[in-house]
């Protein structure tokens, strides 16, 4: 799906569409949850941080063992996979939320790949379709 209005409706629209997709595909619970969470986190980064981005697009496809989604945006060049890891062992006082999106990718995705093409960031994430 293409989202051309990067305002506060963009993410709920995306989440609704992904939940509907997961249900239609009868994805098991964790696979569905991971799909929605990762797409949400990464699209939120575009909406909040990609200066001058005018759209993002999410494409989802399904194989027997894997669900793959691709997030494309026209913001400035940015590779989310090049960032450092969140500190999940910090105490309550120290804890902040930086880097969680990437952390979630590392823990929940089977694979992740980023490339820059024709002024677009293209991030491809593969998830285990059988995760329950």
């Amino acid at each position, binding site marked *: 799906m293409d989202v051309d209005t990067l305002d506060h409706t963009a993410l709920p629209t995306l989440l609704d569409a992904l939940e509907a997709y997961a249900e239609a595909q009868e994805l098991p619970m964790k696979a569905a949850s991971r799909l929605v969470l990762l797409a*949400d986190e990464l699209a939120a980064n575009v909406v909040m941080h990609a200066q001058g981005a005018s759209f993002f697009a999410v494409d989802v496809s399904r194989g027997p063992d894997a669900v793959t989604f691709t997030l494309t945006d026209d913001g400035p060049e940015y590779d989310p996979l090049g960032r450092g890891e969140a500190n*999940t062992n910090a105490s309550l006082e120290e804890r902040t939320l930086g880097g*969680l999106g990437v952390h979630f990718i590392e823990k929940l995705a089977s694979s992740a790949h980023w490339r820059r093409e024709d002024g677009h960031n293209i991030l491809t994430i593969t998830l285990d379709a059988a995760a329950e």
Partner: protein
Amino acid sequence: MQITSSQSGALNVATLEGRLDTATAAEAEATLISMLAAPGLVLDMAQVRYVSSAGLRVLLKLAKEARTKGAAYSLVGLQPAVREVFEVSGFDKIIPSYATLAEAVAA
């Protein structure tokens, strides 16, 4: 996201329903902060099917606020998919959670 309030003994109980995400986080935060007072607040999460990092931000803020107010604070009934988000993000180490309200109240 819907939030209803009730009591269990001396504790406030906030029962949440729906998604705790970017769109619902700000309003949820305002409501929950107003419900947070000593001796404490329990969040019943059994009807919450999804929490994103925006939702985690609210839960973290409440935890810090609870500490400041000297109030107990815990979560109850995390759905398995939501529990996974908690464990992957390390939040299970800083916010107490229980399977049932009875356990939370007894803690």
